[in-house]
Every structure is written in C-alpha cells, then in structure tokens.
C-alpha cells in the first residue's frame, strides 16, 4: 500500500468507524461524535477559570476508557475526544480573559492586555471574534505543519538513528525539558530525577521488584495515572485552592463589562489587516511548539512581544497602542498560543517524546488502551501488509481537521456564549474536580492504594509548585523512564557491553554533548 492509500484508510477509519447514530439515513461515526463533543467540552473547560484543558482531559480519560474498553477500536474515539478538548480549551481560554480580565488558561494572560480594554470600550464581541479568527487560523496552520513534518522526521529517525543514538536522544530530551521548563535548570533536574526515581520503583528485570522495600504495596510500582494525575491535576487543585485562600477568596469574574453598543462583526479589510500578524504569530507558535517542553504561554508571550515591537516601529502615532485595546495584540497572542497545540504533537508522534501536558494525556490514552505506540515506528509505510498504527496516525490527523472544521464553523458562536462560566467560583469547583479525579482513578485501578498514591503525588505536585518547580519534567521523565532504560539495556547489549556506548557514534556523542550544554547554558542564565 502506498502513502496515499494510508491517508485514505485513516480518513475512512474516522468517517466509517463504528456508527453512533444515523442522520437522514447516513451513519455518523462514534469518532466524529467524540471529536465534536470533546471540542465543545474543551471550550467549556477553557472558559472556566481554574479548569482548563489538562484537567478536563484528566477527568475524561478514565471515563472514556471505561466506556470504550481496551480494544484498538477505542483508540480513535478516545484520542479524538482528547484532541477535541485540547483544541477547544485553547479558544475557550480567551473568553474570560476578554470579558472579565481573568485568563481561563495561563496562555491567555496576554489576551487580557488588549482584550479587556476592548471590552471596556464596548467591543467585547468584536474582541472575541478576533480571538476566534486568530486562534482557528493558528491552529490550522500548526496542524498542516505537523502533518507535513511528523512523518518525515520519524522516517529520518528510523533511517539514521540506531539504539545508542535513540538512547542519547531521550537523554537530550530530558535534559532540554529539565533546563528550559519551569523555575531553573537545577529545579528542572530535580523534578526530572524524581520522576525517573518514581517510575523505577517496583520494576526491573530481576525477580525482586527494585526499590519496593519488600512491601506488597510498592512491588507493583506506581500506576502511571496515579503519578501523572496526582502531580499535575491534584497538585494544581491544592495549589489553586490554597492560593485562592491566601488571596482572601477573591472571587473570579468580579470585573464588570459595560454595555456592548460599539460591537459589530469583523469586516474583510479588518481581517486582511490582521492576517500578517496572525501568520507571523502562527510561525512563532509552531516553531516553539515543536520543541519539547516549551509551552503555549511562552509562545503567546513571544508572539505578543514581537507584534508589539513591530507595531511600535511601523504604526502611525494615532493607532491604538498595545495594552490599550489593540486588535493586533489579541490576534498575536491567540494565534501564537493556538499554533502550539498541533506542533507540540510533532515530537510525540515522530519521536514518542511528549512535549506538553496535552501530549502527556494522549500518550497516557495510547498506553492504557494499547495497540498504538507513538514514536518513529508508527510511520512505517509497509507495502506488503497494512501497518495499523500508521492508519491510526492518519486517523488522528483527520480528527484534528474535523476539530478545526468545528472551530471554524460553530466554535466562534459557542465560545461567545460561554461568558457566564467565568463566574463559577473556583473554590467550589476544584474540590469536585479533585474527588472526580480520584474516583476516576479508583474506577480504573479498583484499589484504595491507587487513591493514596495519587494523593501522595498530589502533595508532591503542590510542594513543587510552592517552591517554583515545574511538575512537567517529573511527568515526562515518569513516562519516558521505562523507555530510556530499555533502550539503554538494548544498546549496551548490542555494543557487546561497551561502557562508552553513548559516545562511540558521532551522532550519539553530539546528542550527549548537547545534553550537557543545554543544562550548563541554562544554569549560567538562571541556576
């Protein structure tokens, strides 16, 4: 089968999969329904301050797995739903940022700078339309880059990298994430080291499960859902609740927006004027998103800063300045943060390395269900027999375009109707999220130990946030830990027990040198 045949099979897997219902005699597939439902839920989650995409994904995943089971047929509906949430949450985050000066997601903070002033001038709906146009454009651009780049990168990795090089690449990814994410390289290294240490508990090749202290509780290791959801979600819930308390329970969404009498739809000349800003920010967001660990918040900041610098240089003195309600400020931020989502899947699908929280949940879904192992082996264009993983990969690309279509058609209307969610008090919502997450984990693991482990990891995540340490290196190290050890064991055996196996090939040596360099450079800047 040729490449186009695989693309076609991927499209068919989405549109002709198991049927959910029939509409005018035409069957609508479950995957299609799930992508649309995920997208709408994502907008709701993004528009609710304190909730956001990762929490919505964390809560949904165990429920979806319970509903669809552990068969390969479950992969596209479950992952399609998560992709829908990922995309919906990005545009949803702009709603409270513009209407109430409260960013729904961290990457929408820069949207408040011009979005809220526009709302104060009575142009809230216009600001929301600009945010939607920019977000949908950036997202679509990023997806196209993903589809063009991921297969080629994977093919290059398979063709040129052997076991030692792949091991060195995993070490480089971990060093890079540790060095660039969060507070400082020192804290990043600690976070990644703790993640690795946790994943090695109760595992190993020997009969005795290592680091289990001889206990039954630890000899099965920590469930991946307990570690990931504990550190990411429970840690966030504890921290947000505690911070809300420290801020004397200042309720979100206190700000009032005036009457929107100056509101109107965007005209074509206005859209044309915004397009260069949107395109430039989309490129910035896509490039940043393709690097593992660098999130949409940085993309939004760089997109906004670069657009502001350009605006200051080239715009007439009477033009609306950035920070006072400039439409280009919203366009630059929203295009940049939305274009991260597609590009962030490039390292996931081509290398198996999760780059952000959303990607972590996609890998978690793939690992829980089975039958799809994100990484270079996915893109094997076998001709004699069908590679089912490649069909799933093209199915996922199709899901992304379905979500984009939703975004362009109903996304704008739906997001504009979600303003009321910004008034949901965080301190009442978050305990529900917490118990829902713990219940979902219990339903999956059916033992109370998993709940205690999750709470323990939640405390760790809370502590990390208190000392300014990002939990993302911990999570990514936890996910990559087993793969790193397997790869190192195989490389060591394949090289006949050569202790310098990471330095004998030039490519592996370069990767190792870069691993050290990235930490050293990062440490010189901020220890």
């Amino acid at each position: 089968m040729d490449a186009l045949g695989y693309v076609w099979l991927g499209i068919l897997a989405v549109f002709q999969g198991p049927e959910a219902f029939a509409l005018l005699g035409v069957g609508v597939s479950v995957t299609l329904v799930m992508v649309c439902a995920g997208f709408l839920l994502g907008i709701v989650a993004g528009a609710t301050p304190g909730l956001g995409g990762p929490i919505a994904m964390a809560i949904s995943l165990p429920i979806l797995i319970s509903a669809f089971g552990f068969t390969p047929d479950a992969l596209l509906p479950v992952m399609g739903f998560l992709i829908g949430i990922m995309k919906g949450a990005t545009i949803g985050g702009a709603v409270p940022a513009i209407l109430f000066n409260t960013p729904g997601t961290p990457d929408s903070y820069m949207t408040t700078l011009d979005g809220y002033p526009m709302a104060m001038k009575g142009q809230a709906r216009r600001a929301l339309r600009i945010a939607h146009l920019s977000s949908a454009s950036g997202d679509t651009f990023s997806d196209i880059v993903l589809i063009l780049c991921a297969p080629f990168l994977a093919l290059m990795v398979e063709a040129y990298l052997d076991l030692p090089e792949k091991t060195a690449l995993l070490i480089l990814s971990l060093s890079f994430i540790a060095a660039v994410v969060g507070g400082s390289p020192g804290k990043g290294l600690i976070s990644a080291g703790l993640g690795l240490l946790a994943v090695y508990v109760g595992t190993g090749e020997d009969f005795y499960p290592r680091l289990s202290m001889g206990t039954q509780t630890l000899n099965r290791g920590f469930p991946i859902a307990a570690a990931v959801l504990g550190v990411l979600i429970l840690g966030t819930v504890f921290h947000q609740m505690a911070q809300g308390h420290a801020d004397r329970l200042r309720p979100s969404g206190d700000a009032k927006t005036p009457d929107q009498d100056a509101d109107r739809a965007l005209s074509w000349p206005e859209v044309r004027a915004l397009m260069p800003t949107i395109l430039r920010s989309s490129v910035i967001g896509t490039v940043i998103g393709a690097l593992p660990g660098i999130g949409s918040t940085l993309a939004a900041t760089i997109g906004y800063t670069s657009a502001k610098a350009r605006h200051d240089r080239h715009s007439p003195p009477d033009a609306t300045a950035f920070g006072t309600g400039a439409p280009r400020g919203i366009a630059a931020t929203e295009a940049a943060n939305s274009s991260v989502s597609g590009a962030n899947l490039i390292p996931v699908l081509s290398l198996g390395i999760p780059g952000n929280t959303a990607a972590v949940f996609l890998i978690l879904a793939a690992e829980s269900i089975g039958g799809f192992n994100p990484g270079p082996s996915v893109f094997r264009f076998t001709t004699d027999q069908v590679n089912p993983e490649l069909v799933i990969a093209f199915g996922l690309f199709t899901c992304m375009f379905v979500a984009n279509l939703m975004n362009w058609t109903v996304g704008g209307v739906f997001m504009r109707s979600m303003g009321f969610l910004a008034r949901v008090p965080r301190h009442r919502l978050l305990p529900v999220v917490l118990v829902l997450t713990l219940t979902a984990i219990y339903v999956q693991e059916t033992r109370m130990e998993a709940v205690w482990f999750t709470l323990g990891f939640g405390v760790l995540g809370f502590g990390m946030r208190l000392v300014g340490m990002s939990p993302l290196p911990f999570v990514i190290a936890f996910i990559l830990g087993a793969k790193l050890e397997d790869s190192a064991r195989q490389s060591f055996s394949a090289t006949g027990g050569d202790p310098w196996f990471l330095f004998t090939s030039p490519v592996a040596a370069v990767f190792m040198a870069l691993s050290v360099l990235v930490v050293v450079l990062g440490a010189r800047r901020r220890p």
Partner: protein
Amino acid sequence: MSRTGTRALGLICASFAVLCITVWIPLDTDTGLIEKVRRRVEIGDALAPTVAAVFVLMGGLLLALAPGPTEAEDRAPWRGTLGFGVAMLAMIVAGFAVMLVAGPMALALADTVQGSAREYRLLRADTPWKYIGFVLGGVIAISGPICLAERAVTIRALLIGAGAVAGMIALFDLPFDDLLLPPNGDY
C-alpha cells in the same frame, strides 16, 4: 524563593540523592549497576535509579551552590498557603477514610439490629450498600474543603457535595455494570 530557601531546598535534595545512592538503592535492589549473566555483561537493576538520583544530586548541588534571587525579590511563597493546603489534605484523607469504613460499618449495624451475619464483600455491588461509603466520604471530601475556604459550614457546600456525588454515581455507576465505585473494589 529566597536565596536561603533555594539553598536549603538544594541541600535537602542533594542529601536525599546521596542517601538514595549510598543506602536505599544498594540495599533495595538485588542486582548491582552492572552484572554478569552467562559470561555476558548486562546493565543491572540498580543503574537506572542511580542515574535518576544523580539527576537529583546535580540539581540539588546547582541550587545549593549557585546564587539565587535575593531575599527582597520573593519572600516565603508558601506563607498563607501551606497551612490551608495541609488542612485541605486532612479533610480529603478523612473523607476517603470514612468512605473506606462506612459501608461495612453500616452493614454491621444493620446486622446487629436484624440479628443477621452478612459479609460486605457479597453485597458490595448491591444498593444501598455500594453507595453508603461513597456518598458519605464523597460529601466530606468535597464539602469539607469548600467550608474550609468559606470559613463556615454552609448548606450550599453540603448541597454541592451531595449533588456532585450524585453526578459521579450517574457517570460511573449507572451506565456501567462492571465498574465498582470506591471503596468497593477493596472488599
């Protein structure tokens, strides 16, 4: 974080890593860093955790030895949040502890009144037994932190807890026959 706080964090992490490398990992793994199996040298179970601990050690030393921000930049970030976090955690642990024992205790009470001797394990998927622990514990774990944040026990908080628990039962229990709500899988 303050400079002193960063240094303390670095020293704590570095000490933990040294303890792992010298005590925990050697004592709690059966194979060393490398081992010989049938005349072939292979990587042992201790190597990967040791590398992980070296990551923590390096990070700890970086924090302990390199200068951080000054005291004036950021004083204790946990002031006002740590105490609340601990209280909230205690509330949630209490909720789940109640969840664990409430069902069997209710059954024991019913048995005492009725003079029967039933085993909770056999009733763990039956109404109302399967809901007793989840409802009681769930309401405590949800309403407790809300009351803590509002500094008052309110009817609204209890209603939110009860409503959310009912929603979770509708989400996990009603559509799926094979799923067990907490804590029923433990019995």
